[in-house]
């Protein structure tokens, strides 16, 4: 490709397109990258993320497998043992459960049990989360299971630029990465240049998406747009909310999160996954351990209810929305601010 042919113009690109571009570029750059899964070939994936890969790279590089998640991931383990970098697609969050044995017994601990002799550079792409009207088993948020398994990285992009950058980083990683793709953001678009993708921080770094002073919203994946909208709406109440996008749940960027909470003194963790035993509890505990003397209110969680993911006609009542986030912000004991003798208003 000549320099003149490089399209540097930024134009509206969907997250699904950026993910597909990341796969394509990774395969073009490294012949050891192989994509495998159910429907990833001729169909291009049910979300079209793998569209065109078989045509460009052949069936050996982008392979339609039998319908068997444990088999897909188990075969990927053997491929990784032989020096390939498999990228497997699980199609839907709850469809990944049959592969848990392979994930937990082998993928996550192969490096450890072989004293580093057998790293597992496997990327497991899991379209996850609700909000698309999916029927049962098409909307689960399973991140807590993955977070509880040592040896895995757990990543969830929320922007088009991150979708590309984090997927490239995941494929390049010598460790297994659970790559959670928020389904309801697949068609969200941003101006982005496919041939000149912007640099984004790597796995393990959080980003402050909106600076603020009153409180910190800590979130990731599909809940980021909700939190940004809540922060805009909150200005009407006089609250100036900071929004931290974790981007990576494992490793967890304590520095960025704690620095933000120390600045604002208040924190709300927002995610779709269940609250009890969910990611928010871990994050709230870490904030409390490290920032207790900076906190002016307990760390609150806005999460999905502690129920099996509901049927699509009821999911809007389950998913944390702007109102629920703002309600939590209002419960951050704001009266303490005025009783502290200040003139009121924001800190």
């Amino acid at each position: 490709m000549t320099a003149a042919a490089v399209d540097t113009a930024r134009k509206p690109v969907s997250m699904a397109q950026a993910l597909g571009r990341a796969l394509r570029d990774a395969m073009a750059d490294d012949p050891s990258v192989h994509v495998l899964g159910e429907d990833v070939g001729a169909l291009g994936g049910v979300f079209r993320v793998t569209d065109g890969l078989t045509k460009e790279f052949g069936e050996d590089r982008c392979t339609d497998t039998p319908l068997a998640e444990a088999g897909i991931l188990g075969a990927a383990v053997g491929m990784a043992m032989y020096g390939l970098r498999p990228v497997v697609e699980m199609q839907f969050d709850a469809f990944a459960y049959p592969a848990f044995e392979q994930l937990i017994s082998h993928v996550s601990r192969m490096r450890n049990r072989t004293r580093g002799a057998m790293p597992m550079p496997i990327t497991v792409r899991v379209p996850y989360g609700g909000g698309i009207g999916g029927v049962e088993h098409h909307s689960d948020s399973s991140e807590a299971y993955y977070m509880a398994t040592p040896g895995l990285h757990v990543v969830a992009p929320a922007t088009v630029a991150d979708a590309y950058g984090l997927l490239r980083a995941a494929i390049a990683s010598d460790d297994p990465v659970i790559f959670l793709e928020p389904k309801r953001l697949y068609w969200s678009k941003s101006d982005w240049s496919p041939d000149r993708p912007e640099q984004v921080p790597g796995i393990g770094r959080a980003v402050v998406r909106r600076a603020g002073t009153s409180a910190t919203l800590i979130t990731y994946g599909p809940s980021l747009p909700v939190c940004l909208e809540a922060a805009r709406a909150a200005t009407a109440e006089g609250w100036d909310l900071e929004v931290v996008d974790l981007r990576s749940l494992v490793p967890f960027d304590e520095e960025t999160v704690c620095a933000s909470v120390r600045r604002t003194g208040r924190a709300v963790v927002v995610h779709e996954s269940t609250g009890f035993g969910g990611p928010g509890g871990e994050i709230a505990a870490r904030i409390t351990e490290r920032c207790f003397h900076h906190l002016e209110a307990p760390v609150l969680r806005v999460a999905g209810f502690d129920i099996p993911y509901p049927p699509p006609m009821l999911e809007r009542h389950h998913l944390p929305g702007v109102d629920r986030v703002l309600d939590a912000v209002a419960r951050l004991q704001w009266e303490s601010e005025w009783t502290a003798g200040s003139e009121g208003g924001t800190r």
Partner: protein
Amino acid sequence: MTVLEQPGSYRPTPPPAWQPRTDPTPLLPDAEPFRLLGTDAAADLDPELLRRLYGQLVRGRRYNTQATALTRQGRLAVYPSSTGQEACEVAAALVLQEQDWLFPSYRDTLAAVARGLDPVQALTLLRGDWHTGYDPHEHRVAPLCTPLATQLPHAVGLAHAARLKGDDVVALAMVGDGGTSEGDFHEALNFAAVWQAPVVFLVQNNGFAISVPLAKQTAAPSLAHKAVGYGMPGRLVDGNDAAAVHQVLSEAMRRARSGGGPTLVEAVTYRIDAHTNADDATRYRPDAEVEMWRGHDPILLLEQELTSRKLLDEAGMEAERQAAERMAADLRERMNQDPLLDPMDLFTHVYAEQTVQLREQADRLRAELAAAEELSPGHQEGTQR
């Protein structure tokens, strides 16, 4: 709707007559397990191969008895003995070429040793000082696998990857009769057949999954019959006949190597010892059954063949026994030394790059160790077992 209203106007195209894609007959196993020793066909066997198998069997039996003794002395946390199954273990190792890969289960330490692994390193998992005591790439032996059948898809993936790279590599994966009930067994065989991957699956049917007999494990005519459903050949062999197992596996390996795809081999054998030292086998099987199988011992079968054909005399047998004794003495001596463990190894090899959180936890342990050393100098060294 219009079809129903105007009868006769609709002429559906009949579907094409259904045809099986593969004639299942050649895939079916024979009714009886294949045997060589004691038959006329044994006359064609290579004497050198028979002597080699014999030497490995004798060493293998001694290895099993020595390892079992080490559990009684507390030197091994557990040992799943393969006594009675040595023919399968040894043949599996000997049919592999240097570049091939072995995927053993937890009971297949002996196959790994016969492949060339240091016996002490092969026992590391069972001693408990690390999960895998060897570099799998060195002898191309995957880590001993504790979950059932989960290593089978790995064998398929590795063989598939090797073929994609154009390498002449065959993977041999070992599993027990109980493991054939697991989902991963099914998925591995299905993937292997669809991909025509160069894999050989060896089922050691030793009669019991801990205490559950085969009749309660499967309703299949034989485990080898399962192959037909995947579109690969199933082969049934006497698992105590080392020559027969070697020949059937060799044919399967040749077939895989030449692009003919996977084979499922069921070796019918018997676990003479209990499942592990933690098991009481008298609760679920009669002594008479064990005694009957002792009469079909793999070493005796081969010994009879070798002596009747005058390929081995008493002096030759004694030489093999002494070689096995030396191996056992060396194993005993080295296993009786406490392994030197570094607790800080807990944090190495979790990730390629240690996370901030793990660095903090490593610092905490380092401080605990330093405090303990201050209280009781030298106490930590060599006594962490």
